């Protein structure tokens, strides 16, 4: 399939980019060492004569240019990874719709619960981190920043959807967008947990798009949920959202794959004490009308 070859090509390009990155980094190391030496001398001997200051300024300018080059290559590498991932995603969606349409093929083995959960956790962990250039502020759908009012989720995007459960209750579930109709302003979404759940057709008001970037607590703390904020949070081994209050926002981005709560926040639910994955913020309007939210 052409998608495979394309992906292979991109992987090779990524490899090259990574090598270039390291070249750039080792090149700039020398200058950083010089800066360190100058710092030491200036601090221990208390010399801040204009000579030293000018020298330092020159070193800083060089280091700045190096850092900019390094950032730009790293961004290209990350973009390449995003490109590969989106190709993979497209492949998955194509396969899925092909599956749905053709009745002749034997039904695919539905994924086991555990596998699904692991995949979910993995995708949450590898949500790209937003690293803005100096002066850039985090965009909508980064961390706690809500989507713009005219945003339409694309096919394959994950959303929180408020659906009516069997006994008339309403529940927020994790769902994937299938399509959006501009004429009726309604989304078609699939429950992530494909076990026999049907496709839902819901109005826009019942859909909250999930964040597409993680926020870095060190550089963009304003894109995080703050303490005591009311949010919708996902239990680690389920696909439903529950109301919760933020207990502690994160201090730094954790990358360790073993972390149990790798995305944006650590949350403590009102009634239970387990930590949850927070993925989105409830919209207050839709919550006002809810009467029976299971907690």
């Amino acid at each position, binding site marked *: 399939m052409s998608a495979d070859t394309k992906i292979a090509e991109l992987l090779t390009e990524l*490899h090259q980019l990574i*090598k270039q990155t390291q070249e750039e980094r080792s090149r700039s190391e020398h200058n*950083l060492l010089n800066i360190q030496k100058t710092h030491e001398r200036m601090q221990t001997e208390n010399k801040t004569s204009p000579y030293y200051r000018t020298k*330092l300024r020159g070193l800083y300018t060089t280091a700045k240019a190096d850092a900019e080059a390094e950032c730009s290559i790293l961004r290209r590498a990350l973009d390449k*990874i995003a490109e590969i991932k989106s190709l993979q995603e497209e492949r998955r969606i194509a396969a899925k719709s092909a599956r749905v349409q053709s009745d002749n093929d034997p039904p695919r083995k539905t994924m086991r619960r555990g596998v699904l959960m692991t995949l979910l956790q993995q995708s949450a*962990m590898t949500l790209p981190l937003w690293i803005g250039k*100096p002066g850039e502020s985090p965009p909508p759908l980064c961390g706690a920043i809500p989507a713009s009012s005219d945003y339409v989720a694309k096919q394959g995007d994950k959303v929180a959807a408020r659906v009516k459960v069997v006994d008339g209750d309403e529940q927020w579930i994790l769902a994937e967008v299938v399509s959006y109709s501009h004429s009726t302003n309604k989304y078609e979404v699939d429950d992530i947990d494909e076990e026999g759940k049907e496709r839902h057709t819901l109005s826009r008001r019942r859909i909250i798009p999930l964040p597409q970037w993680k926020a870095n607590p*060190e550089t963009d703390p304003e894109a995080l949920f703050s303490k005591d904020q009311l949010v919708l949070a996902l239990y680690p081994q389920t696909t439903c959202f529950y109301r919760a209050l933020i207990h502690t926002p994160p201090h730094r981005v954790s990358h360790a794959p073993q972390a149990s709560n790798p995305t944006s926040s650590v949350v403590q639910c009102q009634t239970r004490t387990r930590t949850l994955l927070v993925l989105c913020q409830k919209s207050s309007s839709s919550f006002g009308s809810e009467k029976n939210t299971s907690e």
Partner: protein
Amino acid sequence: MSELKDCSPLKYYDFKPVDHVRLCPRYTAVLGRSEDDGIGSGELDTLQLELETLLSSASRRLRALEEQRQILTDWQDKKGDKRFLKMGKDPDPAATPRHKPKKQKLDGKGAHGQGPGPGRPKSKNLQPKVQEYEFTDDPQDIPCTPKNDAPNRFWASVEPYCADITNEEIRLLEELLKPLEDEAEYFKIPALGKHYSQRWAQEDLLEEQREGARANDKKKGIMGGPLSELDAKDVDSLLKKSESQHESQEDGCPFGPLTQRLLQALVEENIISPMEDSPIPDISGKDADGAGTSPRSQGKAFRLAKEEMHKQGLRQRVRVADNEVMEGFRRIMAARQKKRTPTKKEKDQAWKALKERESILKLLDS
């Protein structure tokens, strides 16, 4: 500001690059691989995380570098233009020379006029050695005051006392001396008026009424508005009437005007001695006692000022006469040098100048 320890705003950040061998193992592994081995699609996630780590560290380094560089630039400009009011925003050291400030005149230290010059790294090498030395010493100097300012400051402080008297000052004294015309008004003792405790009690009452009216307003809404306003107005007018009636009676003395007159007559006849906080308002005027100083002392200052002015004028004339005498002397000396006797004209001039000077001096001394 140029104290070394106080004003070094630099933060010596540790710009160590990320130790990728330790923190980014997958990245390091990929680096080691050849083109053929390449990257597996399963490795993408870990690579992404590691690259993000590198990028965020580089990004932070970039921001810190920019911030520190800006501090350095500002500092550089601040040091070069110590006397300037606005901080140099120009980061380019080769910028065209800045205009010398007017403030420089006030500082006695002329040597530092070259200050901005040596500040630029480019021109540093061209400057004469002395100035370079001076400039590099700057950080150790205590702030940029010129070396020997004391005499200037002394004379500046003494100046108001030694300066010549001007006409303005004379005018000021005259104005002070002018006896106040409309003093009579100040001598009227105003009536005592109502005692403060009673006045406050009344005001509190009014306040409560107003608040009650306001509360009523809120309850009644618009309809009740005009009504309660009217009520309040009525109440106010009633209160005022009663007040005025009371006040006239409590005007200093509760006994009425007739009693006052009687008492005053008795006091004048020396039958009753005047009481201390007397209920009798004092009608008679006081002697012109302007501004709390005795007329004698006031006039004295004025007189002295005038005398001093006169003397100043004389002194001025003495100075002129001095110059003339000097002129005459010089002429005679010149004539002597030329080995001719001074002409009669010159001698007369010299004598005249001398005599004039003497007469002025005599006037001055008298």
